C-alpha cells in the first residue's frame, strides 16, 4: 500500500532532480505524457519509442536517488487495472481497425487473438507505463505544495490555487486523523470482515466514521475561515507567496529533455 507519507518522504529527498524548479518538472511530466498519449494507437515504432522514453525516465529515477522498491510498489499499485484492460484488447477487435489478421492460435470458448489486438494492447500498456512513470517521478521529486506553487506561477488563477494549497495543507491533517480513527477502532476490536457481527451494523459504523470525518473537515473549514478573516482575507489582494527562481540548470534540463524526446521520435 502506498500512503501519502511514503510519497512525501521521497519528495523530501535531496538530489539534482529534486532541486529542479517545480514548473520545469511539471512541464516535463506533462510533455512526456502528452507525447506518449499522442503516439498512434498502432505503429511499428511505438514500442521502441516508448521503451526509450521509459529508459530515459528510469535514468532520472536513479539520478533522483529514489528508493527503487518504493518506486516499483508505486507502479504496481496502479498497474493491475491498466494491465487488465490491456490484456482484454488481445481478444477484442479494436473498432478503429478495418481488417484483422488472426493470430494462428486455437483458443477455447471461441476466443481468438488478432495481430491488431496484440499491437493495440501492448502499445496501450507501454503508454500506460510511461505515463505512470512520469507521474510517479514527478510526485516523488516534487513536494505537493511546490506543484501548487508551480500551477499558480503558470497562470492558474489564485482563487483556485488557494483552494488547492489549503487542501494540500489539510490533506496531511486529515490523513493523520484517519489513521488515529482507525487505530482507535482497532483498539475496540473493529474489523470490517468480522463475521460475529452483522454486516449491516459494520456498514453503519463505516458511515458514522465517514460522517465524523466529513463534519470535522467541514468544521475545520469554518474555523479556518474565521482565522483567515482575522488575517485580512477577502481584501482582494490575494497572491501566492514563493521565492524560487528558474536557474540555468532548469533550462538546460528542459533543453536536454526536449532534445532527447525529439531524438527518440525522429531517429530511433
Amino acid at each position, binding site marked *: 500500500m502506498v500512503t501519502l507519507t511514503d510519497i512525501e518522504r521521497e519528495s523530501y529527498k535531496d538530489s539534482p532532480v529534486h532541486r529542479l524548479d517545480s514548473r520545469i518538472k511539471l512541464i516535463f511530466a506533462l510533455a512526456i505524457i502528452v507525447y506518449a498519449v499522442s503516439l498512434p494507437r498502432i505503429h511499428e515504432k511505438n514500442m521502441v519509442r516508448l521503451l526509450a522514453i521509459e529508459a530515459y525516465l528510469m535514468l532520472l529515477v536513479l539520478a533522483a536517488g529514489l528508493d527503487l522498491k518504493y518506486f516499483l510498489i508505486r507502479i504496481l499499485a496502479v498497474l493491475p487495472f491498466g494491465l487488465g484492460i490491456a490484456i482484454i484488447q488481445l481478444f477484442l477487435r479494436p473498432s478503429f481497425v478495418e481488417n484483422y489478421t488472426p493470430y494462428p492460435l486455437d483458443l477455447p470458448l471461441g476466443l481468438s487473438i488478432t495481430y491488431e489486438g496484440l499491437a493495440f494492447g501492448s502499445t496501450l500498456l507501454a503508454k500506460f507505463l510511461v505515463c505512470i512513470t512520469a507521474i510517479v517521478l514527478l510526485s516523488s521529486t516534487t513536494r505537493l505544495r511546490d506543484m501548487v506553487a508551480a500551477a499558480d506561477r503558470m497562470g492558474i488563477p489564485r482563487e483556485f490555487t488557494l483552494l488547492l494549497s489549503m487542501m494540500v495543507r489539510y490533506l496531511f*491533517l486529515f490523513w493523520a486523523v484517519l489513521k488515529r480513527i482507525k487505530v482507535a477502532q482497532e483498539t475496540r476490536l473493529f474489523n470490517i470482515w468480522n463475521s460475529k457481527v452483522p454486516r449491516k451494523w459494520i456498514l453503519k459504523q463505516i458511515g458514522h466514521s465517514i460522517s465524523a470525518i466529513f463534519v470535522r473537515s467541514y468544521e475545520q473549514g469554518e474555523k479556518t475561515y474565521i*482565522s483567515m478573516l482575522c488575517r485580512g482575507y477577502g481584501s482582494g489582494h*490575494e497572491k501566492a507567496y514563493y521565492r524560487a527562481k528558474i536557474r540555468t540548470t532548469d533550462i538546460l534540463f528542459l533543453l536536454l529533455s526536449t532534445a532527447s524526446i525529439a531524438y527518440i521520435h525522429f531517429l530511433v
Partner: protein
Amino acid sequence: MSIPNSPHNPDEAAIFPKETTGRRNHRSGSGSEKPGNSSERNIVPILEAKDLCHRYPHLESNALDKINLKVFKGERVAVLGANGAGKSTLFKHLNGILRPLSGEVLVKGEKVTKKNVRVCRETIGIVFQDPDDQVLAPSVEEDIAFGPINMGLPRSEVEVRVKEALEMVGLTGFEERAPHHLSGGQKKLVAIAGILAMRPEVIVLDEPTAGLDPLSSARVLELIMKMNRELGITLLLSTHDVDVVPYFAERVFVLHHGRLEADGTPEEIFSDPELLRKAHLRLPRVAEVFEMLQQEGLDVNIQITAEKARDEILRVIGPGNQKAGMK
C-alpha cells in the same frame, strides 16, 4: 486518595456576594473617571467593551452578558475562565468577527463597524487556540506571508516581515517546513508569527499554552513577554491554567457564564478562593498551600509565585528561627 483542589460544586457557591462583583466590574467600567494604575498610561483605552452582549442563535441564554472592560496600551491582561465561560466568544468580538447583540466594542476609542473592520483587524491580531485552525498554508513562510499579502503590502515588504516574524519567534531556518512536520509548540509559534507579521498593536491569544508540554509552554510564554517588552504590544490572553497567570499577567479578568465576574491584579484575584471556585477555577497550586496554612491559623498572606512563597515562608519562620532550621 482523593483529589484535592477540585473546584466546588457550582451550586453550593451560588450565593456569591453580588456587591463585590458590582464593585469589581466598575473598576474597569469607570477607568477614565477614577484614574487607576492602567489608565494613567493613556486616557483612551486601546480596546474597550461597553455593555457587550452576545447570543448564539441556537442557545437560550446570552453567551456574553453586559461585558464592560478596558484594556490600555502596553498592558498584559489575562482572561481567566473555565471552558465555555465565553472567552473565545469575547475574543471574536474584539475585531469584529462576531456582531454584538447589543453594546459595542471600541478600538482606540472608535466603534467597530463594517466600515472600519479591516483596520481593526490590522490593529488587533488574534492567535487561536488550535494552530491547525490558523496555519493554513502548506509551508511556514507561505503561511506567515498570508496576513501581510492580504494587507496589500508590496512583495519586498512582505519578505522583510516574514523574516522578522520568524526571527522574533526563533524559527529562522523553518521557512520551507510543512506545518504537519512541526511539533505542537512550533506550530503555535508559527501561528503567532503569522499575526506578528501583520504588526498589530494588540495581540489576543486564546489558550496559548493549552496542550503544550512544560518546555514548549515556557517558550511560548517567554515569547509573549518578549513581544510585550520589545515591541510594546498590548496582550490579552485567555487561559484556564491558573498557575501560569501570576508569571504573566498584570491584570486579570475573571469570566464566568458570559459575565465578567472580576477585574483586578493577580494578587487581588487569587486572594479570593471563593470567587475562583465559583468560576469553576481553582487557586494556583502554591496559593493552595498558603490557604491551608491560613486554615491552620497561621498568619500568612496567600502567595502565588514560587519566589514570593519562599520569601513569605522565610518571613514566617523569622530570621531567628531560620538559623534553627538550617542544615
